[in-house]
């Protein structure tokens, strides 16, 4: 494995988004993974519709919350294609699901894996390098006050409550860390990113890790 790897260097990670006052992190996390993997496959990076996932992933609860795995199950089972964000823009509210015809262009998800990498974060690094950015669920209670730097304390691995996107890691310094894109806008954290120590399952980052296959 490379000592340092960041999918942002490969121009396949979309800019940081802002979910606003809507519990839609799970949709941002999943859509972030899908659009990145789509770009890794050679397509141009296109921002896909978070609102479509929010409105249509019926096993989830829209702005009242959800799980990335339920959204991925919905995508794979229904074969729904995600349309560009420009065609179905984000409203920060749950609305009626808008259906598109089968012939309408979009990005479909063929398969996904959801795995527990706790105690195996080096394997998780390999998974990231091999498959693209990963959708994970973490305990983000202490993130209310986060300004930047590498999180090493104050995080339980048993109370997952927030979905984010792992886009890279860096093990070259004294403290190896994960590079994680959040969806609380660019004024939060380090321009919208948060760094978490690798190796001790900080915030439960390794407990539920989803990779998508298109």
């Amino acid at each position: 494995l490379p000592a340092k790897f960041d999918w942002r260097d490969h121009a396949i990670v979309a800019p940081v988004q802002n979910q606003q006052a809507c519990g839609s992190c799970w949709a941002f996390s999943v859509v972030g993974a899908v659009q990145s993997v789509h770009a890794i496959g050679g397509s141009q990076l296109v921002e896909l519709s978070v609102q479509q996932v929010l409105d249509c992933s019926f096993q989830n609860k829209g702005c009242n919350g959800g799980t990335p795995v339920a959204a991925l199950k919905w995508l794979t089972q229904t074969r729904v294609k995600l349309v560009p964000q420009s065609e179905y823009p984000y409203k920060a509210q749950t609305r009626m699901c808008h259906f598109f015809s089968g012939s309408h262009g979009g990005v479909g998800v063929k398969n996904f894996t959801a795995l527990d990498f706790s105690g195996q974060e080096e394997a998780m690094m390999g998974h990231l390098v091999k498959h693209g950015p990963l959708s994970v669920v973490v305990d983000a209670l202490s993130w209310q006050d986060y300004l930047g730097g590498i999180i090493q304390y104050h995080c339980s691995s048993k109370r997952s409550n927030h979905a984010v996107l792992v886009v890279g890691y860096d093990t070259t310094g004294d403290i190896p860390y994960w590079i994680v894109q959040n969806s609380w806008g660019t004024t939060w954290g380090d321009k919208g990113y948060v760094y978490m120590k690798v190796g001790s399952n900080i915030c439960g980052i390794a407990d539920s890790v989803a990779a998508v296959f298109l």
Partner: protein
Amino acid sequence: EVNSPQFDRRLFFFQESATRHAYLNSFSAASQSAKYGINQFSDLSQREFQDLYLRASADRAPAFSGQKAEG
């Protein structure tokens, strides 16, 4: 508005957050360590923050077991 009940409530949460920052920052002073302080969520109570932003949950996932688990 200053001195409105809403203002007093927000001020109280803001002051609470300052106490929290001191505690969170007390664990490590190393330059690379996480820093905690005032941001856009500082006038929210922890309960409000949870209710608004922490709405995801995780499905229990099988443990990664090498190549067999992939695909």
